[in-house]
């Protein structure tokens, strides 16, 4: 893929040929292959795909949180504001983490340390990168809690995580992520574990915060609906590869990859699980299954000659619209 | 066949645990074939060869009766197995029933668990000491006493596990389909507890050896005439310098066997349902 965006000044994140592998007793299995994506300041990039497609691992790789997992970066570069994160020392990397770049996770229930008050956890994030007095940090924490619309922040700041609802906890997570005034916010399934009504509130909050701060947001979700509402640009991943990427409007109007179609058709009822997607037959193949050619072909209704042998290349359908398919869909009438 | 495959899966890549398993198999074989393998009668004494160091005739030397330590060690393996299995059976049956029933019938359970609390408040060895003085020294009593000691912890563990399972869908389903209490407890809940029970059993087996040895040491365990590793140590403790082989061999046998059983238990624990993994303390 040739990179479409060359304006270095607002190019925030630029991944080139990122390949991740997991070490198993049977050898190293690739989980993300040759992934190239970029994100500009102020932009919201959605990454969508079924669980196991490698989207979360990609986000962890960007954050530098792969340590402790069996997953390693095998190849590629991740440029963040012009610096290749993969070449930084751990210390330099940590100076960016939680500061210029921060992340919120899927499980607000477990992503906060249960034994510390939420205020202290936010203060910890603030003071890690900005030397200031506890009192000042506490004021800043209150400010952040107000920003994420926690009701009665002064009363809540000394609560323990278990005393808050799921939505409130996710707000606390967001407050914590904002502690360092990040340029890039990675949100990995931030609403999956929440009630539908709360989901909308949280998404709305993220969008507003993005508008206010001008940060870039990478929103990861299995739910095309969530992505559609919030993102400027969307990348669809399947089994470790981007299969289609386009502007949000562009994608929905003119999708080319059968998998994207499948995802769209199966936008689930709010409370339904990913696994129950009915529009796509079959299941996501497990990692140790070797599939030659297009990884989607066993489930693809359009699969034809060559699909089971040749990996399709990323083809441009428009200047900002690419897809990876031998038999792409025709534009809708 | 499936059992062997399962074992293969559990022990794959764990060479230490595998070595432990092999040692335990060896101990079991020694226990079974002791009368065939033992070069001497373990009770036959000969004052003329007393306290002789290890040699070709007496691999592990002889004790102060002039009895062959190697033969006694082989028969000691028998006692180790009897004590281990016996305690496991007593602990699992008594403790398991108490725990499961308590979790299932909550009101009765409240009473039972209080009794368990009272028993747990007695430090294990003290309880065993008092009971052993009260009863008399015999293999059966030792097994019962050690079993009771571990029955209390087993009851606690099973209580928790059964509670967890009780809330599960399949139990509701069984209840709806009109299954009786006994059927639910033993046909639906129990099968789910078999593997954690096995793990618990392996740790009880290991600790029972140490408890029995401690009781033997305090002179309140197996009858002194029974050749057990603990008795061999207990009788020979004054010979620590005079006849060091009398302490080294049985000591090493106990340590190796307990160590092996712990390794095996550890390997088993890693293979069970993670929900129950933390319930079983073990080593």
């Amino acid at each position: 893929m040739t990179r479409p965006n060359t304006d270095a000044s607002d190019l925030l994140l630029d991944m080139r040929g990122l390949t991740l592998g997991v070490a198993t007793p049977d050898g190293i299995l690739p989980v993300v292959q040759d992934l190239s994506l970029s994100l500009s300041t102020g932009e919201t990039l959605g990454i969508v795909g079924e669980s196991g497609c490698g989207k979360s691992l990609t986000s962890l790789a960007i954050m530098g949180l792969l340590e402790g997992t069996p997953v390693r970066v095998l190849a590629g570069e991740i440029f963040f504001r012009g610096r290749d994160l993969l070449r930084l020392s751990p210390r330099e990397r940590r100076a960016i983490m939680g500061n210029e770049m921060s992340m919120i996770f899927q499980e607000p229930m477990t992503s906060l340390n249960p034994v510390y008050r939420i205020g202290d956890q936010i203060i910890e994030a603030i003071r890690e990168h900005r030397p200031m007095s506890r009192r000042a940090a506490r004021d800043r924490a209150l400010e952040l809690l107000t920003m994420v619309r926690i009701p009665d922040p002064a009363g809540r700041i000394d609560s323990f995580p278990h005393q808050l609802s799921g939505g409130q906890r996710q707000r606390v997570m967001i407050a914590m992520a904002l502690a360092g005034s990040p340029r890039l916010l990675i949100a990995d399934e931030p609403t999956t574990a929440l009630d539908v009504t709360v989901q909308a509130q949280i998404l709305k909050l993220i969008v507003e915060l993005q508008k206010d701060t001008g940060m870039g947001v990478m929103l990861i979700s299995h739910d095309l609906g969530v992505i559609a509402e919030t993102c400027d640009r969307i990348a669809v991943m399947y089994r470790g590869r981007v299969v289609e990427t386009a502007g949000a409007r562009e994608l929905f109007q003119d999708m080319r990859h059968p998998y994207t179609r499948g995802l769209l058709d199966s936008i689930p009822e709010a409370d339904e699980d990913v696994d129950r997607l009915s529009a796509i037959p079959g299941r996501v193949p497990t990692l140790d299954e070797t599939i030659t050619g297009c990884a989607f072909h066993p489930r693809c209704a359009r699969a034809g000659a060559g699909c089971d042998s040749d990996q399709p290349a990323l083809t441009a359908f428009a200047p900002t619209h690419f897809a990876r398919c031998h038999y792409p869909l025709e534009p809708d009438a | 066949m499936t059992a062997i495959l399962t074992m293969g899966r559990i022990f794959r890549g764990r060479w230490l645990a595998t070595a432990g398993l092999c040692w335990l198999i060896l101990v079991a074989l020694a226990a079974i074939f002791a009368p065939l393998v033992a070069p001497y009668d373990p009770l036959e004494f000969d004052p003329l060869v007393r306290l002789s160091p290890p040699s070709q005739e007496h691999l592990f030397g002889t004790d102060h009766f002039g009895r062959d330590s190697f033969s006694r060690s082989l028969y000691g393996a028998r006692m180790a197995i009897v004590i281990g299995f016996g305690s496991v059976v007593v602990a699992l049956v008594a403790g398991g029933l108490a725990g499961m029933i308590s979790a299932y019938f909550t009101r009765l359970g409240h009473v039972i668990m209080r009794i368990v609390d009272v028993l747990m408040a007695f430090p294990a060895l003290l309880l065993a000491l008092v009971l052993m003085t009260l009863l008399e020294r015999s293999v059966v009593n030792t097994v019962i006493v050690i079993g009771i000691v571990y029955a209390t912890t087993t009851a606690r563990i099973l209580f928790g596990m059964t509670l967890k399972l009780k809330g599960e869908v399949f139990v509701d389903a069984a209840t709806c389909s009109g299954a009786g209490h006994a059927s639910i407890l033993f046909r639906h809940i129990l099968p789910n507890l078999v593997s954690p029970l096995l793990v618990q059993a392996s740790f009880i087996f290991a600790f029972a050896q140490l408890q029995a040895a401690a009781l033997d040491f305090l002179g309140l365990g197996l009858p002194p005439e029974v050749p057990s590793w603990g008795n061999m140590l207990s009788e020979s403790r004054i010979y620590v310098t005079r006849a060091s082989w009398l302490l080294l061999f049985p000591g090493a046998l106990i340590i190796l066997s307990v160590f092996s059983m712990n390794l095996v238990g550890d390997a088993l624990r890693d293979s069970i349902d993670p929900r129950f993994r933390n319930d079983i303390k073990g080593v």
Partner: protein
Amino acid sequence: MFRRTHWKTVFAAAIATSMASTAFAAGTLRYATVGEPPSLDQHVVTSDLSTTIAHHMFEGLYTFDASNSPVPLLAESDRLEDDGRTIVITLRQGVTFHNGTDMTSADVVASLKRWGEFGSRGSLLFSNVDSIEATGDHEVTLRLKQPFGPWKNLLAFINGGPAIYPASVMEGAGKEPIAPENYIGTGPYRFGEWQPNRHVELVRFDDYDSPEGEPNGYGGARKAEFDALRFIPVPDVGTRVSGLQAGDYDYAETIPGDLFDALDASPDVTTILNGGPIFGLVFLNSKEGPLKENFALRRAIQTAINKTPALQVAIGPEKLWRANGSFMPQGNVWYTESGAENFSKGDAAAARELAKEAGYNGEPIKFMVSTNYPFHYDTAIVYTKQLAQAGFNIDLQVYDWATLIKKRGEPDQWDLFFTHHGFVPDPILISVMNPTYPGWWTTPEKTELAEKFTASADPAERQKLWGELQALIYEQVPTMKTGDVYTYNIASPELKGLGEATLIWPHFWNVSK
């Protein structure tokens, strides 16, 4: 502020003590005992350990010299009147109790009365005593029903014996041992403290009035060289040995025979043999069960046993045991071989024959033994095997000691039990002579001989009668002696004045380090 100083002091003291720990120990003898003694009240308690401690504190009218003859201790002299029916004892003057009062005849009378009524061995003498009274400030008169030979030996044997307490302590004292605060005697050491589980400590009695004469056995002058004697219970025998080797104790008692050679050879350890041997006894039930009055069956059992292998197994080095059938050791005035040819036959065939003649049909014979004393148990194992080979059906019942002594009081619970006996200077003190001792040997033959034995005051006649009694023991087999065991203790070589051997109980007057 106070607290800070306080801790400083403690810390300084800690350093001082750790540096001066040897100095602290110099004036104290540290004695590792087999366990906690029961009460130290000598009247009612017969534990040897209790006496080992208490005879530094309590004294009787008499004691024994090195040849086990009674010599005066608190007594000064005595005379017999009325053909030996009246004993007049003159007391030493100027003897002070540990509480500061003078010892007078009132104290002696009170003590002897309580001992006579409640004491363990008191009835042996007092069943013959008509009256006891103070016939002067320092004179006591005993009137006997008939002449009684062993009176002086009984008064000299302090174990379960007539220690002299102040009359005030004796007031109201019964069978229950007197409490430690009343441990008031006349000995060279007085009671210091008893920290249960930790130690019993005696401290030097500065106003001690020593008898005169060269030290000889327990007789003669006594001088307390140590500031304190500390008796520390160390029940684990291995710990006693290693503790002495490591310098934590100066003296440790009852060491296993098998360690003798190594310890004897070690320059860091002195071994001290006990002069008077102890001996194991297997009592046979004369009151109930298959052995009751079946003397032939008893002899069959006796014939089956060979005592030597048991001694080899249970004791070890030959230096420490004798397969001796005489109840009194070789060299002792009471030594006699009468009847002893049946001591250790070890003839299974003959025994089987005898048993058959006695009508034995394989009824189970209950043999009680305790594991608290390894030599009891080891010996019993060997005997059981020998008896089984002779066709006896032995039901070996292993108990702890407390259970055994309870059970042996119940005649229906046992047929044989194992115990051991300490050295005693007069055969009258041997437990089998006591008709109420479990076993209950009260045959008419025994009673008659025993009466003659105690009535006689003539040493030669008494020796002859004892020979007949011993022969009767081998004939009626109320008990079986297992052989003499010379136990030994170990000491730091720094201790001076211990002598070659212990008479009965170790003593630490005239001993220093």
